[in-house]
């Protein structure tokens, strides 16, 4: 080594020597969690196939539209959960916060006659402040996030009862609030959205490829997977819009959910802030020494979690047309955390993707929806969902151990 000439260069990324062994060991990479989303999509296909065989109503346009509407609230909350999980922390208050913030919106709108937009804004800001406070308590006093947010879970449930007051249930009648979960766009709008999304995705992919090529990074080989990905995304979007259009049309709720997921993914993977979240989740001490304010990152992430809980809660209330004392309760908290974990975001921090919020919600939603179609008892539903979560966490733990065995953490 000491005689190595200076012109020996680090291999360029188009050097296939790095890729071909990986291609041969694609199974091992799936096992180690590098291709978690492939694993989940495969699982989703299996689940859909099983339910379609059991009941041929499962894959109909009307049921798939319902499925998407059912997962919106939990998916939105999961977007915040992903950020918390990337830090290697947990937020148990998300369900209670979603209920409380929805109640704030409903009370302001129904009891105090506020216009919907300011009411929604106050609700979302309340969620952000709650997250900020919990994050500050967690970092400021060094209390485990588990305990801080457990206290929050209890406290915000109490706050929900207090905000709702004696009535206990508030029915939402305002058109804009109801419209959040119940607006459908026409076929034309659906196709325009489809074209825009496809163009945006293809455009950014190709722009990135061209930019890399012009500065000499990446060779001709890289274009093939990019085109394959663009084609797959195009097919998926066209299929989804076609299905939705054949029923009630493209729901506003789905646009919102996917916009938050895509925006969250952008923040997580393309901005310095997102990079720092991964760094803190991977090695907080290394992040601190690199000059990253670990405290600020943590507080910001908990604020994101509170904000997304509020948004999810508002959509849940819109779909239910009411806020009541059990809003944000029951299994919402657990499902919102289980989803991203099922879809490959590690509980141990530093690994995951915001898309896992959507994919995980789809998996859990599909199981729940499918079992409803089969008219199974909710006892069975809970046990099956529990088994799926356990299986997913075991896969995560095995992937982690397998990475460690391969000399990785």
């Amino acid at each position, binding site marked *: *080594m*000491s005689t*190595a*000439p*200076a*012109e*020996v*260069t*680090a*291999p*360029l*990324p188009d*050097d296939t*020597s*790095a890729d071909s062994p990986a291609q041969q060991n694609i199974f091992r990479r799936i096992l180690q969690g590098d291709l978690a989303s492939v694993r989940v999509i495969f699982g989703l296909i299996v689940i859909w196939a099983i339910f379609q065989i059991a009941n041929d109503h499962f894959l109909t346009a009307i049921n798939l539209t319902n499925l998407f509407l059912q997962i919106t609230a939990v998916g939105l909350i999961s977007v915040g959960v992903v950020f918390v999980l990337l830090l290697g922390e947990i937020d148990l208050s998300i369900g209670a916060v979603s209920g409380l913030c929805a109640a704030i919106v409903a009370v302001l709108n129904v009891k105090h006659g506020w216009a919907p937009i300011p009411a929604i804004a106050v609700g979302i800001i309340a969620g952000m402040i709650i997250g900020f406070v919990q994050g500050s308590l967690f970092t400021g006093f060094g209390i485990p996030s588990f305990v801080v947010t457990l206290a929050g879970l209890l406290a915000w449930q109490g706050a929900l009862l207090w905000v709702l007051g004696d009535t206990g249930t508030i029915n939402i009648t305002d058109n804009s609030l109801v419209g959040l979960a119940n607006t459908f766009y026409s076929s034309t709008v659906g196709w325009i959205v489809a074209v825009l999304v496809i163009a945006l995705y293809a455009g950014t992919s190709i722009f*990135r490829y061209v*930019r*890399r090529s012009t*500065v*000499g*990074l990446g060779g001709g080989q890289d274009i093939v997977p990019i085109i394959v990905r663009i084609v797959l995304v195009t097919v998926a979007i066209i299929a989804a819009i076609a299905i939705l259009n054949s029923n009630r049309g493209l729901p506003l709720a789905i646009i919102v959910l996917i916009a938050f997921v895509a925006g969250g993914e*952008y*923040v997580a993977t*393309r*901005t*310095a*802030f997102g*990079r*720092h979240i*991964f*760094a803190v*989740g*991977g*090695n907080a*001490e*290394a*992040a601190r*020494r*690199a*000059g*990253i304010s670990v405290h600020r990152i943590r507080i910001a992430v908990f604020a994101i979690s509170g904000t997304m809980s509020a948004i999810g809660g508002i959509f849940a209330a819109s779909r239910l047309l009411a806020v009541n004392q059990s809003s944000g309760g029951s299994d919402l908290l657990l499902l919102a955390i289980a989803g991203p974990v099922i879809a490959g975001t590690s509980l141990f921090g*530093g*690994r995951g993707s915001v898309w896992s919020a959507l994919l995980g919600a789809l998996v859990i939603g599909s199981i729940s929806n499918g079992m409803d179609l089969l008219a199974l008892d909710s006892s069975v539903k809970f046990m099956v969902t529990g088994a799926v979560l356990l299986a997913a966490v075991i896969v995560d733990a095995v992937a982690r151990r397998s*990475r460690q065995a*391969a*000399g*990785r*953490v």
Partner: protein
Amino acid sequence: MSDDGPQGDQPQSLLALRGVTKRFGPVQALDDVWLDINAGEVLALVGDNGAGKSTLVKVISGIYAADRAAVWFDGRPVSLGNPTAATRLGIATVYQDLALCDNLDVVENLFLGREERSPLGVVTRGLDETKMEQRSHELLSNLAVTIPSVRSEVGTLSGGQRQQVAVARSLLGEPKVVILDEPTAALGVAQTAQVLALVKRLREQGLGVLMISHNLADVFEVADRVVVLRLGKVAGVYSVRDTTQEEIVGAITGAEFGRNQGNGGPTEVPA
């Protein structure tokens, strides 16, 4: 062996420390320590456990404030009050634990905390991955660092590769002095050779390198001069050409009492 430390009040070396003293309660960690690091030189810092090596490194990198110290950088008197001050002067430190994020790839680790913004970054907050990757290639090729790909996760790299990435990262701030804390500890033979070759290239690029090491074979392979610390004092500075491993071991352990500075004396028992 230079005996009583350099004289004169205007040291000409790149980084000069005089009279560094640091006390932790009853423990005198550093006692009147002095040091000169020249550009294009590898200075090894050796000593037994508890001799004060780590404390000295932390003083130089600004983590500990010395109770008393005079410091010159490039001939100017400076202060090393905090890590930022040391970094601004051009002193980069690579700690033994490397402080890398195993879940991030090489480029992400290299630029962690100093990411490049894309041209539209003011609006989009986006990162310029292309530029960072390009600069990573340049940096690593300059140092002849061999890794599978700059997009490999750092957790998948070998110990030697990780060490090289950590060193490369310290160079992004364009330092003049690089401090390496036990860079070859826990490395195999081939990986140690890689890291030592990298240390030599740092010297060729005109950097002053301070290398803390337990391994005298490594020290004799790359260092130009050796500073021996014993019980918080400078037990001697040796030119590698004019000394032997036995002489260094003697200075480390204090076995050759005649070689002591006289201010510790033979009564001191090695820790």
